[in-house]
Each structure stands twice: as C-alpha cells, then as structure tokens.
C-alpha cells in the first residue's frame, strides 16, 4: 500500500490515464462520434480517478503532517518545499483556469448571433412559404381529382387514377376506402420506392380526413428527399355510399429537396446548439475544471515527490551525521544520484568508512594491549615476588597480590599516591619506603638492596631489586621494584646449620662421653682402695662430677639428636580444644600457681594432625609460660582458639598469652632457633621443637610482645594438613606458607 501511495510509477500511470480520458472527454464534448458514446463512462472514470488521486495526495499530506508533528528529520524542509512547489503550480493553473472559463463563455456565446438566428428563421420560413405554395397547388389539384373521382366506381378507378396522375403530373395517387384499405393506386415507374405498396397515411391523418377535412403535409423521405402529401376525402354522389380517401403525393424536384433539407439541417443544428448552449458550457467548464483539477493534483503530487526526492539525501545525511555523532561509524547512506548531493553522500560514506577502519584498528590495538596487560597482570599476580611500579614522580602505579601479601597492607588505596603517603599510612613500611625513595632518587638504572620489615608475624627480611623503566622520548618511564621475602630462606638456612651442629654434636661429642664416663668410674674403682678417707671423698666427688656432667652432656646431645632427626608423624583427626583441655589439666594444681584461662571457640573443627606431637607443642608452650611467670605476682595464662579462612585455607589458630615480662628484645628475632634461651637451665630447644612440629603440620607460628604487656605466641594450623615425606633437618626446605 505504501509502495502504491508513495511510488511515482502508479501515480504517473494514473495521471496519464486520466489525462487521456480527459482528452477523449473533451473530444466527446466537441461532438466527436468516436468518443461521444463513451462520454458518460469517461466522465465517471475521470471523477473516480481524480477522487483516487485526491485520496492518495491527502494520505501523503497527512503522513507528512504526522512526520512534522513528530519532528522527523527533514519533514520541515519537505513541507516548505512542498508549499513552494504547490504555490508555483496553483497560481498559474488558477489564472489559466479562470481566464479559460471566461474565454469559453464568451466564445460559446459568440457562436450564437441574433442575426444568424433570425436569418435561419427567415430561411426556414422562406422554405416553408415556397413549399406551401407548391403544397397549395397540389391541394387544389387533389381537390379537382377528388371531384372527378366522386362518380367513379371502385372497380374502374384504377385507370382513372393513372390518367389523373399523368394529367396532373403527380408522383403517386392512392385511393383508400373509408376503413383505410387501398382501393387502387398509381405511381411513376421510375419512383425510387423501396416497396411496391403505397405509403399509407397514419391514423391521425385518416381520422382527420374522415371528418371531411383534407390534410396536406411535407414529408421528408430517404436521406435528403422531400415530398408533398395531400390527403382529401372523396365523397360519393350516390346516396349512402361510403366516403373514400384520396392521397396524392408529389416528389419535389431535387433542387427543391436539397435546398429544403439544407435549410432544415442548418436550422435544426443551430436550434440544437442553441438549446445545448447551457449544457455545452457546463460540459466545457466541467471538462476544463477536471483538467485544471487534475493538473493541480498532478502538480501537488509532483511537488510531494520532488520535495521528498530533494530532501531524502539531506535527511539521510542528517541522520548519518547523528549516527556518527553517537559513535556508529558503520553508517552508509544510499547514493541517490550523480549530482552534488550524490557526491556529498559519497564523500560522507567514504568518511565513515575511513573512520570505521581507523576505529577498528584502534580497537584491535586496544584489545592487543588489553591482552598484553591481562597477560602481564596474570604473570604478576601469580608471581611469588612482590612487584611495585612507580611513575616518574614516584607515585605508585601498579602492584601485584604478592606485594600486598608480603607487605601485609592493602595497596589499592595507594595507587596514584606518593611513596611518602604510603609510608605515612603504613608506619611499619617506613624503612622500606625510605629505602625505595632513596634508591629511586639516585637515578641508577638498576639497584639492589636488603631490608628488614616488622610485621604481624615477626621481623622479616626483604631483598629488593629496582629497575628504571624506558620512557617515551626524553621523558622518564618510572621504576619497577621487585622484592622477595627471604625470611623463610634464611630461617631454612639457619635450620640446616643447626641440624648440622646437632649431627656433629651427636657424632663428635656423644662418642667420647662413654669412654670418659667409664674411665672416671675405673679411676674411682682402682684408686679408691689406696686413698685415705679424705682423698677418697675428694676422688668420689670428682668422679661423680665427671659422670654427672657426662650424663648431662649426653642428655643434651640426645636432645639435639632428637631435634635433628626426622620425626615419624601419625596424622589423625584431633579435636584441638579437647587436647588443650587435657594438657592444661596437668598444669592445674596447688603446686603450680599459674592460673590458666581458656577461651576456646566451639566452632573449631577437628584437624588432621599427630596428636602426640601437638601435645608436645602444648607442653612446651605451657612450660615456657610457667617458667616465664615465676616472678609474676599473679601468674596468668590465656589460651584461646578460633577458626577462620584465609586466602582459601581453613585455619585453626591457637594463641597463648601470659602476663609475664614478655620476650627479651635480644632474643625475639631468634626465638625459635636452638640454644636461644634466657633461662639458666634451659636447653634452648623448647621453642625450636615447637616451631619444628608446627612446620611439620604445614602451620606457622610467631611470637610478639603486645603493647599492653606480656608475651603472645600465635600458632596457625591448617584443618587439612598434608604431610610430605619428612626429611632430615639438613635438607629442610623453607615453609611454603607465610603467616599473614
């Protein structure tokens, strides 16, 4: 439907058909025989066609108005152009129409002249007068013939009629009975008659004659012939005889006939035209009005079509520009033609194509950069080393997860901040920040450094490597700092060293102890008998001292040996709260003044561990605490447990906190190393063994001195601990898990 109402071809065809129909109608109005028969049909076709065209135009105008109200792009310009075109068409058509109407009216009126009308009337009267004279003569002749026939009987009347016809020089004589039946007739042999039967007068004439009156008429015959007819009664002289009727016909000479018919035709045509003057005017005006209306409608349609055709590329361009403004660079406009608008549309299409291509390349580059960035991020994230990058003004740009884990801070808020801000926000990072700051300001391309870091899990050692990044042109590209927590490595090295010490002690010291002891006992046995009591006592004391010290040294060496040798772990589900209860009960008694408070979380699940080894850990902790609290007035130990998840690992934490003097600062960094003790009789292996067992369970521990006094020992054990094959202390590896 839209194609029909909006397309140019259907309307053009309709318009051509209507114009053709109007041309035929105009020809019909001018009395064209060919189209005269179709006049009414043509009129209806034209009216219906014009109504259809009008409806189509109204539909298009309504559509345009709706577009205008909806502020569709290009509708205003379309309407403006349409109005302009319509104005251009309406004014000349209207002027031509009104002047044509005037011309038609005057022209048709000029056809009819009073003089011509009068002349035709006169000509007709003249013709009638001339014919009347001949008719009167024939009337008189007919009266004479009727008189002669009054005495003629019907049977003998035929030759008489023939004689009368020849005598009076008439064309045909016919005698009828009163009822109209032919009695006899006589006619000229060369009469151009279609039938042999005489021409009968009609009933009205016969009726008039029966009343005794004669009747004469001028009868047109054939195409251009005229004849006179006189019908008169023939009264019989015999009394009672019926009346007969005589008809005499006289063919007028050809010249008379032609002249008469010419006058008749001219008069009739003029009269007809005179009568048809009004309808003719109406017909012409109707045709002209239809032509004007059709011209106007076609003009309006052409205006609509032209306006749309002109505005369409502009509207497309406007929509295309809007699309480009909204980021749609794929927009391609239909090229309407090779004119300037077409060139403009082609240029627009070329522009959008180029922009689209450039944008695609940019997007591709962005995607590649994103892939590279993601790749780098992935590598950095899964790197065990901490990575920090700084811009040329020493502001933090990027960091990885390991950096946050090693430093124990959330670096997200520090992105874009200066080093100083990071140092101020996280006080424990002060030395590290200062070192990085100094290194960056030296301007060296690469640098190495090592520093300590105080953290929640104790003091740790970091090794740092810095590199200057390449910049764009003459600008500096910033720096990247990579650092590792080597505390575990150092600890492992220390553990290995101590294992070696233990092994040598076992090998180098323990072996001579037995001969020393045996030698001391032999000296006492051999020499005792020859000595006096005083000397015996001295020998006894000396050898006893030797044996005791040897036993002491042997016990010490055994302890180191136990520490150095790999333990056999028997993992099983252990309820840690219950185990703490069991161990703590052994330390509650009148002989032990230490008060023990338990704060055990009921949600702590059973952990996979060696019950005996964990029991030893608890014993050592309690012994350590008990020894540390000997001088305290109210020795108190708080033991707490809790269960939580950290970095996807389920952990159980045990904290033991006393109210003693805390760990000495001199030993805090080496607390878990063998031979580190502040006790006079301590072996220095208690906490070293604790650390060893905890690490066997893939756990971690650290000791701190809380700000409000006392000492705090924290142990974290995984719920599902894995127990790799335990190696000798000499091959011990650094712990994989770092305490948080």
């Amino acid at each position, binding site marked *: 439907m839209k194609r029909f109402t909006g397309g140019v071809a259907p309307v053009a065809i309709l318009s051509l058909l209507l114009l053709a129909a109007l041309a035929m109608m105009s020809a*019909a*109005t001018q*009395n064209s025989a060919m*189209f*005269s*028969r179709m*006049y*009414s049909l043509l*009129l209806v076709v034209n009216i*219906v066609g014009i*109504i259809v065209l*009008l*409806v189509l135009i*109204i*539909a298009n105008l*309504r559509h345009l108005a709706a577009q205008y109200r909806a502020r569709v792009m290009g509708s205003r310009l379309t309407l403006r152009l349409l109005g302009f075109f319509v104005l251009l068409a309406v004014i000349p058509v209207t002027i031509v129409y009104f002047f044509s109407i005037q011309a038609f009216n005057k022209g048709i009126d000029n056809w009819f002249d009073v003089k011509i009308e009068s002349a035709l009337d006169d000509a*007709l009267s003249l*013709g*009638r007068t001339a*014919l009347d004279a001949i008719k009167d003569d024939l009337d008189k002749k007919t009266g004479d013939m009727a008189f002669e026939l009054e005495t003629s009987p019907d049977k003998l009347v035929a030759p008489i009629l023939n004689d009368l016809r020849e005598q009076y020089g008439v064309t045909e004589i016919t005698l009828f009975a009163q009822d109209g039946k032919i009695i006899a007739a006589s006619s000229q042999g060369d009469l151009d008659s279609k039938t042999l039967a005489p021409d009968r007068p*009609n009933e*009205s004439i016969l009726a008039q004659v029966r009343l005794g009156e004669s009747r004469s*008429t*001028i*009868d*047109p*015959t054939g195409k251009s012939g*005229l004849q006179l007819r006189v019908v008169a009664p023939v009264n019989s002289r015999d009394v009672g005889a019926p009346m007969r009727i005589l008809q005499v016909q006289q063919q007028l000479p050809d010249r008379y006939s032609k002249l*008469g*018919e010419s*006058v*008749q035709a001219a*008069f*009739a*045509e003029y*009269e*007809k035209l*005179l*009568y*048809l003057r009004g*309808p*003719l005017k*109406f*017909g*012409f005006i*109707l045709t002209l009005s239809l032509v004007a209306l059709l011209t106007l409608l076609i003009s309006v349609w052409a205006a609509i079509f032209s306006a749309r055709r002109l505005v369409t590329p502009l509207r497309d361009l406007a929509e295309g520009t809007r699309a480009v403004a909204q980021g749609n660079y794929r927009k391609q406009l239909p090229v309407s033609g090779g004119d300037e608008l077409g060139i403009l549309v082609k240029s627009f299409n070329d522009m959008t194509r180029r922009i689209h291509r450039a944008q695609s390349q940019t997007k591709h580059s962005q995607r590649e950069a994103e892939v590279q960035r993601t790749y780098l991020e992935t590598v950095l994230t899964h790197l065990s080393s901490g990575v920090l990058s700084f811009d040329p003004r020493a502001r933090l740009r990027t960091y990885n997860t390991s950096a946050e884990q090693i430093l124990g801070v959330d670096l997200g808020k520090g992105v874009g901040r200066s080093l100083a801000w990071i140092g101020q926000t996280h006080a424990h990072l002060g030395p590290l920040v200062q070192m990085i700051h100094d290194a960056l300001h030296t301007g060296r391309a690469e640098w190495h450094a090592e520093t300590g870091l105080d953290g929640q899990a104790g003091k740790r050692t970091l090794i740092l490597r810095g590199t200057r990044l390449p910049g764009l042109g003459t600008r500096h590209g910033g720096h990247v700092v990579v650092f590792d927590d080597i505390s575990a490595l150092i600890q492992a090295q220390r553990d290995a060293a101590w294992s070696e010490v233990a092994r040598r002690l076992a090998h180098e010291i323990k072996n001579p102890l037995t001969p020393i002891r045996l030698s001391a006992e032999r000296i006492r046995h051999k020499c005792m008998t020859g000595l006096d009591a005083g000397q015996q006592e001295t020998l006894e004391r000396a050898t006893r001292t030797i044996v005791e010290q040897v036993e002491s040294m042997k016990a010490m060496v055994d302890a180191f040996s136990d520490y150095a040798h790999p333990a056999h772990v028997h993992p099983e589900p252990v309820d840690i709260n219950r185990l703490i209860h069991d161990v703590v009960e052994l330390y509650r008694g009148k002989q032990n003044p230490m008060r023990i408070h338990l704060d055990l979380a009921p949600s702590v699940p059973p952990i996979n561990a060696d019950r005996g080894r964990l029991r030893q850990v608890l014993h050592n902790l309690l012994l350590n605490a008990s020894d540390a609290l000997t001088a305290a007035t109210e020795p108190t130990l708080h033991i707490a447990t809790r269960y939580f998840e950290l970095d996807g690992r389920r952990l159980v934490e045990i904290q033991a906190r006393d109210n003693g003097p805390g760990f000495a600062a001199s030993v805090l960094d080496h607390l878990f190393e063998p031979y580190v003790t502040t006790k006079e009789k301590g072996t220095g292996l208690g906490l070293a063994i604790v650390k060893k067992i905890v690490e066997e369970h893939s756990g971690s521990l650290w000791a701190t001195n809380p700000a409000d006094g006392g000492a705090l020992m924290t142990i974290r054990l995984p719920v599902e601990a894995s127990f790799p094959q335990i190696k000798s202390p000499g091959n011990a590896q650094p712990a994989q898990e770092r305490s948080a």
Partner: protein
Amino acid sequence: MKTLKLALAGVAGFVVLGISTHGAWADFVVRGVDTQFANDVLHISSVLDMGLSAKAEEALNKGIPFDVVTDLALIEHRRFLWSRVVTDRTLRQRVQYHALSGQYLVSDEGQDVERFPTAQAALAYVGSLNDMQIPLAKKKAIDGKMRYSLKLRVRLDIESLPAPLRPLAYVTPSWHHSSGWTAWAVQQ
C-alpha cells in the same frame, strides 16, 4: 482516513441520490399488455401513456433526438427452480422533430420512418406495440404446463442524448423517463 471516508460517503450519497431520483420520475406508464402464444410465436400488444417533462419536450422541439428503448423479456416460472429468461428483445426507436415539415419523425433500427404532427402522437406510437410478433427460436421452447410472463419496460435512453446534455440529464430527475419493469401474464 477521515477524508477518505467522507469522499466515499459523498460518492455513495451521489449514487443513492441518482437511484432514488431515477425511480421517482416514471411518467412512462404501461396501461395494458396483451400477450399470447400462437404457433411458436409470441404476439404482443401494449398501450402506454408516454408523457414527457417540460424540459424534455422543449429539447425534443429544439431538435434533440430522443431514443426510446423498449425492453421485453419472456420469463418462464419453474416450479422448483428459479425463473429463466426464455427470450428477450430490445426495441429502439428514435423520435426527432423535423422543423421544415413541422412533423415528428419516428424511425426504428430498420430505418422505417413514421411521421406525426405532434410529439404526443409520435410518443404514443413509440410506446404502443401493435401485435408485435416474436418468433421463438426453438420448437417446444414453450412448455404448456409451465407459467409464463412477459416483462416490459419503456425508457428514454439518456446515453443517446448529445454528450453535453448527458451529465445534466443524469443528475436532473426531469430527464429520467422510464416505466420501470412491469410483468404481464402470457396467455397460452
């Protein structure tokens, strides 16, 4: 859409007006028709009143030729089926005023010309059928057991008027002369 509806309503109104005015002016009146079968020939005689409006009569007197059309149809009324047209016939006669002779000429399609002194006489002749015979083409076309009727209509053919007069004649009731269809039983 509203405009379209108005335009359609206007056209419909024009058509309805034309139909109504067509039926309102019917001064050709069939007074009587006598029909009968005889030897497979239908004999028809009829009498009509043929009156013309003043406008039409004026046009006739001014030399405008009138075509008067007589439509005939022989209908067979069947008992169980719809009626059928056995035969039909159209008779066209032209009435024209001859100014020189002062007569009204009536000519049929066979070019036979009758002359009458008055328009009424000419029209009376045109409207009346005097033993018109219509031979039935097929033998036994007429079933003696069936009922037959003759439908007759006499009308002035506006299409035969001069082209400029036709638009006015179509929309002017005084130009609509028709007897309308009348049905008459056929005697067997």
